[in-house]
């Protein structure tokens, strides 16, 4: 469903992404691990088109999308949530979801008719609000809801475009253990045919949700395999998991 071939990115002398080749099957849930500065978010930015690779290519559903801009990739089914909430703060939760759903249905560029009142958009909004447990907050303004609810909305907005592949950049970033537990359930309840690629620091969530794990270090893939293999990997213990095992 999503593939990278020898993806490489340099910022001047700094080599941030080194020859990364990944292949995600339809419905696969992959977690990307790595220490700070490993190039995880840069990889996401390359995948969605916010950054142009120095070399290499990105394929979505078998088609090369490397030259496509962000919006076109999104319309082909590549959606992302951000590590730092990137929402429409002055609007309600419902309007946030509605704007995303309207872009997906095409109602967002129509001159006639209120996109947010369109039955198709309302249906998606209701379904996504249910999926990300936002039903009680639909009419609240984003600025009025808690941080945890905003994290749920961050994922909800990305989901409302009905993506084929959803990239999530640290969905549980900054939330407490209880809320993080809720996120595990939320992610596990997402449709099985949705391909997920998640950057995550929460090891419990990573091993709970992931079908496969990729570990990046200095922009390079140093591990690619099953969660149980990751647990036993000596290399991972050295570069990343040591602190987790000790804890």
């Amino acid at each position, binding site marked *: 469903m999503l593939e990278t071939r020898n993806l490489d990115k340099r910022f001047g002398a700094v080599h941030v992404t080194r020859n990364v080749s990944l292949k995600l099957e339809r419905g696969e849930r992959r977690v990307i691990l790595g220490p700070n500065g490993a190039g995880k978010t840069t990889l996401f930015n390359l995948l969605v088109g*916010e950054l142009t690779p120095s070399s290499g290519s990105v394929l979505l559903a078998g088609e090369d999308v490397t030259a496509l801009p962000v919006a*076109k990739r999104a*319309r082909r089914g590549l*959606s992302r949530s951000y590590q730092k909430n*990137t929402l*429409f703060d002055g*609007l309600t939760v419902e309007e946030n979801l509605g704007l995303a759903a309207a872009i997906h249905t095409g109602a*967002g560029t*129509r001159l006639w008719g209120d996109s*947010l009142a369109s039955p198709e958009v309302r249906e998606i909004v209701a379904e996504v609000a249910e999926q990300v447990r936002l039903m009680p907050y639909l009419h609240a303004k984003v600025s009025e809801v808690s941080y945890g609810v905003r994290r749920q909305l961050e994922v909800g907005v990305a989901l409302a475009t009905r993506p084929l592949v959803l990239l999530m950049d640290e969905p549980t970033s900054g939330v407490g253990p209880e809320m993080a537990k809720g996120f595990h359930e939320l992610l596990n309840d997402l449709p099985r045919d949705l391909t997920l690629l998640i950057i995550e620091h929460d090891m419990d969530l990573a091993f709970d949700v992931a079908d496969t794990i990729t570990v990046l270090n200095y922009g390079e893939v140093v591990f690619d395999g099953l969660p149980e293999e990751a647990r036993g990997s000596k290399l991972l213990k050295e570069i990343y998991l040591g602190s987790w095992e000790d804890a």
Partner: protein
Amino acid sequence: MFQHSALRYTALILLAVGAFAQAVTAGYFGLEVLTEILLLAMLVLALDMVAGFGGMVSLCHGALMGVGAYAYAILTTKAGLAPPVALGGSIAVTGAAAWVIGAIGARAHGIYFIMATLAFGQMAYSYVFEAPFFGGDDGMGGIPRIDLSLIGLDLNDSRSFALFCLALLGAAYGAAVLILRSGLGRSLTGVMHNEQRMRALGLTVWRVKADVFGLSGMIAGLAGALAAQHVMYISPGLLAWTVSGEALVVVILGGLGTLVGPMIGAAAFVILKHEVSNVTSHWHLVVGVLLIAVVMSRANGLFGWIEARWGARLERRLSDMTRKSDAEEITTDA
């Protein structure tokens, strides 16, 4: 997101009734002032659409109004088209020009967008000022008004013309509301709140900005074509950046992003200008002080101040009245 509140409906009704009463009862001077208000209101309505709901603060809307005026003048006096056709043509020409400006400027933000629109406006002004085809700095005269004698209206009469402008301002307001409530308008508001996210969700941002800027330009073009008919003479001064600057002042004075507010601002601005200039020629100073007071008060213009003071109270009173009437209905049914 654009929405009407009880206070906004009330303000709209008061504005419409006040303008209609003035159009019916005023003498020649009063009608001229009213028409001036209506035309400025149309221009600031167009500007508020893009500045208040899209974050595109334009300093070329005066020039767009000028494009509409010149297009109407040329289509009637040089191309010999019937005024109603020329009116449609001038709206289309201005819309197309605005779309191009919107498309080019869409990638710029904040001060850079303002400067880009200023540059477009000044280019248009300089060209018209120097081109003999447009009459140069002498301008163009002999511009006819639309003939509505078929329906018994003589637009050469100031009262009829003011009523005609009022009707078209109502139509322009209706169009602006429809646009802002459409998918395109909603997406534009999304872009103003978070352009990066809208793009990441799959929206072609520049296209949405250009489309709404073009539609806003059509309303500015209509205002220009009416301004040309009003005075029956146009000069390059209509395209000068000061007209755009004045429109922006009026939008801020009235209440950015409210649609009703800028129209109130237009009325306040024109009345203030005429009243103060009776006393002193330095009326700009008074407007300047008022603008500073409005900005420093942190209210969103005159209408923002009114909304903050009475909006919630009016909504509460209306909801109390609804509850009371529901309770009475239940009692009657019982």
